[in-house]
């Protein structure tokens, strides 16, 4: 027997009667075979490159393995998105691999929902249960009763699921949290629905309307890298938002603004630019439509953007709406006008409200006034990666009939007419039973029961579905409702691709590859789908010619190889060098075969192409007028179409009805111009509720990791806990002191959290961080903090279908 010093101390601890247990236990859990390997192996070190899978930002990861066991991660220094940087969550990704509550194999629920009673079953049994039901549905001629609720799958995974659903015969594949809806306001103005990339590196002034790009954006690490050069580039950052976010903290100026009024301020700045003729006159006259007043074919006069702004958004009025002093507006407007390049960004704050679409349009139209498109220090659009095309070749008649059925999650004319999917519509349709029932639902990633404002409805809807199949690797509030869980691999165990992260300024494809063999009896969700298709057989089985998801990725990358463009990420291959070679018809690195290209691609972690296709200015905006449209034809056409669809002819009454349905209060031409729509707040509630996300939580996955819980609120010493930020004035009004428990009450529900009194938030606004308040998601998430989404009113931007996360007003009081 050997006595270590620790045993010795323990002995003494025992004697003195104080056994101290204060550290987390079981942060890391391993299969026994791994323990054996870790303790007795020769400790041979290898490094593998992959892409972080904890959020959709797509940062390159370099993993250190000893004897094939991952022991450390750092950023991949040659991957262009993050260039070696990582966020706290990414750095903690090993703890998600070793999470003790990962699902170890297929399980079947035996108890009630959230009772946590599950039994293990074999993969064969699990797949048989599902495929039998699927075959049965096809035999009944009801393949459309199958739905797939995805989250943020990459292009190839999306294609695979879509192909399965098309071959099977269901129109019901939806991505719950895709960024597609974010692009709707941009599409109205610029014609195509690509989320713009912003060249903040070369801009001299960056004005951000609620875009917390250092913390909540599409790729915070990418933007942090660009931001870090602000000193040598002499870029000035101005951040406009109600709460001082991390981006505002780092900005040169923070302008507090009332929630839901971002559009009005943008138009107030447009007023200054137009009034003082500080806008890009050439660009506006040659490349935009609807700026000046005009007469249409029938001779009717239309008000232009210019006169609409000059008539409605003068600084004093904007001050009244937004709470931003008119002197500040004047100063910022002039600064925008005389600084070149000056860049304007919209983001979460702008979009997350009932008037989000019009507000984002107002913000984006400032970029047009400044002539920022395809300019250094401006706004640009990235080409799609040249993946191999993959089409479904054959559908049988069952599938064709099924696909003719209306999609269950696609809103109708009265609600969200511009979107393909709304979680609100989806839940309501299932609950009301007005359309056909859903018999089988697949859920992969995402957690709508936790993070959507209609969570109660979603939960009820899930209860009505006879077979819910979750593909998650860790149980969460949504997968608690599943009947079967077919667990997916962790991202370090699987093949996948993460390409063209929104708002990142170049074409790129990152490759995830399995660096460890699966720790548990899990299966890649792509392979689960392929396996199900095989078991269904017939034309569904034939749709999947390749053996596995790995081949699916490989097949798609052949197109990238054959395009001969771009380069595999590696040291010392910069933009200039790639451009030089491409202009001369060369490719970086010559590969004898695709296999050679593929091996190197997997080893290096990705491919990128910083060189964009040259776009002619007159082809840049695929709108009806071929120009940037201040006056959106697209919006007008759709509304006319909806009005006509109601009855014959788009009479004013019909249009009126449509406007009311879409909660548009403006009338006349203003509807189709960027304008400010007041948010329908509860009049009897005094305080605005806003939420924000911190880097350690991102989309909420961080809550399952103890180290991220400890980082949550570290800056204000509120570890593992949700807090309510409020201005001292607000606190004084409601007799709340620092650290006191506060009750936050909306018309929907009540929440309890600790007060944080801060000068970094507007009076009469409170901010609650998102991420905590879980009732599931593993032992570390359960029972800590509160979830602000649970007290949010179920409201949406009727045009984009995005949840209005800042449209709820609440009452606050000191909790007893």
């Amino acid at each position, binding site marked *: 027997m050997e006595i270590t*010093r*620790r045993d010795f*101390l323990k002995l003494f601890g025992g004697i003195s009667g104080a056994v*101290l*247990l*204060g*550290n*987390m236990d*079981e*942060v*890391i859990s*391993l299969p026994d075979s*791994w*323990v054996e390997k*870790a*303790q007795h192996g020769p400790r041979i070190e290898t490094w593998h490159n992959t892409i972080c899978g904890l959020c959709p930002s797509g940062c390159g990861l370099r993993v250190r393995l*000893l004897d094939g*066991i991952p*022991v*450390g991660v*750092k*950023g991949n220094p040659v991957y262009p998105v993050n260039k*070696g*940087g*990582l*966020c*706290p969550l990414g*750095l*903690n990704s*090993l703890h998600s691999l*070793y999470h003790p509550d990962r699902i170890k194999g297929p399980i079947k629920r035996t108890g009630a929902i959230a009772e946590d009673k599950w039994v293990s079953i074999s993969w064969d049994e699990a797949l048989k249960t599902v495929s039998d039901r699927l075959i049965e549905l096809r035999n009944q001629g009801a393949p459309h009763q199958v739905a797939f609720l995805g989250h943020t799958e990459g292009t190839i995974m999306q294609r695979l699921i879509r192909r399965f659903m098309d071959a099977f015969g269901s129109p019901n594949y939806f991505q719950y949290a895709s960024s597609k809806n974010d692009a709707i306001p941009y599409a109205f103005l610029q014609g195509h629905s690509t989320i713009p990339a912003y060249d903040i590196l070369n801009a001299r002034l960056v004005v951000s309307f609620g875009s917390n790009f*250092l913390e909540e954006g599409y790729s915070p690490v990418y933007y*942090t890298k660009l*931001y*870090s050069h*602000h*000193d040598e580039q002499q870029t000035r950052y101005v951040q406009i938002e109600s709460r*001082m976010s*991390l981006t505002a*903290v*780092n900005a040169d100026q*923070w302008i*507090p603004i009332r929630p839901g009024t971002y559009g009005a301020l943008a138009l107030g700045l447009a007023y200054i630019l137009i009034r003082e003729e500080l806008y890009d006159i050439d660009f506006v006259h040659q490349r935009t439509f609807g700026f000046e007043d005009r007469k249409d074919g029938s001779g009717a006069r239309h008000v232009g953007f210019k006169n609409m702004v000059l008539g409605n958004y003068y600084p004093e009025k904007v001050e009244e709406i937004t709470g931003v002093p008119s002197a500040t507006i004047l100063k910022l407007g002039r600064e925008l006008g005389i600084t070149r390049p000056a860049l304007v960004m919209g983001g979460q704050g702008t979009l997350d409200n009932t008037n989000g679409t019009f507000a984002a349009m107002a913000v984006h139209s400032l970029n047009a006034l400044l002539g920022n498109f395809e300019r250094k220090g401006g706004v640009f659009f990235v080409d799609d990666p040249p993946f191999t095309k993959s089409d479904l070749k054959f559908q049988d008649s069952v599938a064709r009939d099924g696909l003719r059925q209306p999609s269950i999650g696609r809103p109708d004319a009265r609600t969200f007419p511009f979107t393909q999917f709304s979680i609100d519509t989806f839940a309501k349709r299932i609950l009301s039973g007005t359309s056909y029932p859903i018999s089988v639902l697949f859920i992969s990633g995402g957690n709508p029961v936790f993070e959507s404002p209609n969570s109660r409805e979603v939960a009820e809807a899930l209860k009505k579905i006879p077979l819910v199949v979750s593909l998650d690797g860790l149980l969460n509030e949504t997968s608690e409702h599943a009947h079967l869980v077919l667990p997916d691999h962790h991202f370090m165990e699987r093949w996948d691709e993460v390409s063209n992260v929104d708002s990142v300024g170049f074409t790129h494809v990152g490759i995830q590859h399995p660096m460890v063999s699966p720790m548990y009896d899990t299966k890649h969700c792509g392979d689960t789908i392929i396996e199900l298709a095989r078991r269904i057989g017939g034309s569904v089985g034939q749709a999947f010619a390749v053996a596995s998801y790995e081949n699916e990725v490989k097949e798609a990358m052949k197109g990238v190889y054959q395009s001969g463009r771009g380069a595999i990420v590696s040291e010392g291959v910069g933009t200039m060098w790639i451009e030089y070679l491409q202009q001369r018809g060369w490719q970086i690195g010559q590969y004898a075969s695709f296999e050679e290209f593929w091996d190197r691609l997997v080893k290096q972690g990705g491919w990128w192409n910083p060189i964009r296709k040259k776009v002619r200015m007159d082809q840049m905006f695929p709108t009806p007028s071929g120009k940037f449209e201040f006056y959106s034809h697209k919006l007008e056409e759709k509304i006319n179409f909806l009005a006509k669809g109601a009855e014959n002819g788009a009479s004013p009454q019909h249009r009126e009805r449509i406007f009311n349905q879409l909660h548009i209060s403006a009338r006349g031409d203003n509807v189709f111009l960027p304008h400010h729509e007041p948010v329908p707040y509860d009049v009897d509630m005094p305080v605005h509720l806003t939420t924000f996300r911190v*880097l*350690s939580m991102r989309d909420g996955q961080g809550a399952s990791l103890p*180290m*991220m819980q*400890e*980082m949550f609120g*570290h*800056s204000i*010493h509120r*570890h*593992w*806990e949700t807090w309510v930020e409020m*201005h001292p004035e607000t606190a004084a009004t409601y007799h709340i002191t620092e650290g006191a428990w506060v009750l936050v009450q909306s018309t929907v529900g009540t929440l309890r959290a600790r007060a944080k009194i*801060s*000068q970094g938030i*507007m009076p009469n606004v409170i901010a609650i961080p998102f991420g905590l308040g879980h009732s599931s998601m593993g032992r570390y998430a359960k029972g*800590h903090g509160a979830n602000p989404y649970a007290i949010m009113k179920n409201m949406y931007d009727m045009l984009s279908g995005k949840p209005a996360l800042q449209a709820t007003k609440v009452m606050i009081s000191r909790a007893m």
Partner: protein
Amino acid sequence: MPKWAMVIDLDKCTGCGACSVACKMENNVPIVDPEEAQHGRALFWMDMVTTFEGELPDTQVKHFPKPCFHCDDPPCTVVCPVGATYRNPEGIVAQIYHRCIGCRYCMAACPFTAKYFNWYEPQWLDEAHGIGNPDVSRRMTGVVEKCSFCSHRLQQIKEAADLEGRPIREEEYIPACMESCPADAIVFGDIANRDSRVSRLSRSYRVFRYGEDLGVKPKVYYLARRTGT
């Protein structure tokens, strides 16, 4: 003899906290219970300190990452009764855990609260069975621990350099915090070499050090355009 020092550019630093987590993962720093964390017993070798000043709308929130400053004249080493903490010839203020008796004199002496006490068993590492960073020891209950400038990396780098019979290259010795900083705000290196990046930056007009007036000669320099950050 090199002298290791760090420069943190606060104009670049966004306060994201990546350095804190990179450090915790690299050095097997324990995670404490939620209640203990609330009592201020969470351990961050690389802490992220946030200060709030001013009134709306001119509120100034400042973040600064705070490792051990590795003072050239460290107050913590002179009070140690057992010689468990000392300044080594290369300027690293080391903590030898197996010598430490946990009296916490050094914690009291440190003006920057950069030292942390292990109140609890590192169970999470025991159960990890060799996962976690194998290059760094586990600290047992009752010892003081702190930032080591990732000196375990230096041990390996020195060996690699000696093997090739050459001096250490500047870009070789990089602590975990610098490696993962998304804003490239942290620079580390040999301040005795006047051509190194650290040395050049430490002579910038933007430079300041915490506790300069205490005469402890910290070797972590901060750069900030706005003074008094």
